[in-house]
């Protein structure tokens, strides 16, 4: 394990130069999930298993992750399925309880991923309004923000239809448009862009570049190497809930690819 403490990391950057002002600091983050088959725990089960053998139904999703991101950083998170990538993003977004460690952020990050569903039965337009309200958009800005989200999503008349009729690509477009409407300083993307069509991906990337050009930070999970190389300067490689390597994006992707080739 070659985890790097935040202080050393400053000297360890290559790719695009970034400022020295941190936007995300994750320290020794541990996350365990409780799993019992695919069924939820019942009261009976809880009473029955009180205080006996160590719990084998726990998955240690993150095991002491340290990560610091700075203004202007775009960090690719790579690793095999189930290595803890999505968990890391959710932990940074504050959407998940962590078992130990801490995450500090310059402002509340926005997480955009394929899991986001919003309200199925509500129309796209209504979802825009509800989403904006949840993000704390004030009434006087509501109309402008809603219009901007609608335009950016490019969904046109489909916005009048309930969201359950949307394809996954359309859902992703709407969600991305909402999540970035508040111009978050920290944007977390969990494979969300993959389902968008090429035209939308281009627009999304332009918007992300815009955020990064300011004082933003992107942390992105993806299995698309080209996309990662194009958008990111750094990369971390997660394996079994630990960062096993980190550095410049090209270097880490090469290492990762080499290890995968070795598996075959």
């Amino acid at each position, binding site marked *: 394990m070659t985890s790097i403490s*935040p*202080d050393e990391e400053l000297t360890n950057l290559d790719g695009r130069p970034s400022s020295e002002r*941190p936007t995300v*600091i994750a320290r020794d*983050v541990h996350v365990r999930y409780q799993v019992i088959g695919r069924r*939820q725990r*019942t*009261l009976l089960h809880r009473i029955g298993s009180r205080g006996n053998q160590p719990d084998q139904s726990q998955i240690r999703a993150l095991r002491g992750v340290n990560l610091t991101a700075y203004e202007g950083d775009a960090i690719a998170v790579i690793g095999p399925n189930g290595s803890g990538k999505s968990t890391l993003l959710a*932990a*940074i*977004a*504050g*959407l*998940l*309880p*962590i078992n130990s*460690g*801490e*995450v*500090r*952020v*310059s*402002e*509340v*990050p*926005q*997480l955009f991923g394929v*899991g*986001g*569903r*919003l*309200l*199925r*039965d*509500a129309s796209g337009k*209504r979802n825009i*309004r*509800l*989403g904006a*309200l*949840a*993000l*704390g958009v*004030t*009434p006087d800005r509501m109309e402008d923000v809603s219009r901007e989200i609608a335009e950016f999503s490019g969904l046109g008349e489909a916005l009048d239809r*309930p969201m359950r009729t949307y394809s996954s690509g359309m859902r992703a477009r709407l*969600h991305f448009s*909402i*999540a970035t409407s508040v111009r978050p300083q920290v944007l977390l993307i969990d494979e969300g862009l993959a389902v968008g069509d090429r035209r939308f991906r281009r627009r999304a990337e332009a918007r992300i570049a815009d955020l990064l050009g300011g004082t933003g930070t992107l942390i992105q999970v993806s299995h698309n190497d080209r996309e990662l190389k194009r958008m990111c300067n750094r990369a971390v490689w997660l394996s079994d809930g630990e960062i096993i390597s980190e550095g410049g994006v090209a270097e880490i992707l090469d290492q990762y690819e080499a290890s995968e080739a070795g598996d075959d």
Partner: protein
Amino acid sequence: MSDPDLLLITEQPSTRAYLRSMWDRRRLSTALPMEELRTEHKTTVLGNLWHLVNPLLSVLVYYFVFGTLLNADRGVDNFILWLAVGIFTYSMTASSITGGAKAIDKNRGLMRSLRFPRALIPVSVIFSNLLTFMFELLILGVVAFTTGEPPSLRWLVLPAVVLVHTCFNLGGAFLAARLNDSFRDIQQILPFLFQLFRYVSGVMFPLEVFLSESNTPGVLRVLIDANPLRLMLQSYRWVFMGTPVDVPYLVLAGGISVGLLIVGFIVFRQGEQRYGLR
């Protein structure tokens, strides 16, 4: 390395900051019920008229069974108004708390996508039920008028009664939401609990009269007397009809309501980050 400017996102905000954040997003909790109103009855002929027809029908059913068949009115004047007040009041509590239990699951999509104070979800359930209750108050006004109940200064107390009642409902909704998120069994148990309480709160027959006719054991009698829902119903009936109220118990009911709200809020917040993960 210290970073005082950075927000510790893995820790819960202070209650003050949390309430502040709720206030900033308060419109979400009124927009959600409006949204529901828009989609809920889309597949029915009467549409949103059901919000009026539904309570009216249940008043008629209870009137037929308890007023006509069983003669359980025991000399209550204007039994239909008495019954309507009881049913509307009681069903607001029942559906607020049941709705609170189910609300987390229902809005999972929203919670997975966006970070906002989750307490807004139970609050939105309360708003939704208050909205229905406003319709029902209209019906009560009409029934009171047509049955010759004279207007009264007691009506001015109504907002205070609704406020205390709402504290109780919100506290219950918070508690049910948290419990149901850990044990889905809650949502199975609640209907039976509310069935029981419908009887011991005197929703469809004058409980006090029946209790004085029978010899209920002392402890049970005290429990029934202190039942906040019974007292809530009593207060509403006093407002609309001037029937008697147990004043000392009313103070207790107010205390229980505020206490339940505080406890419910605290308990709910302990699960803040877990909601919507399943």
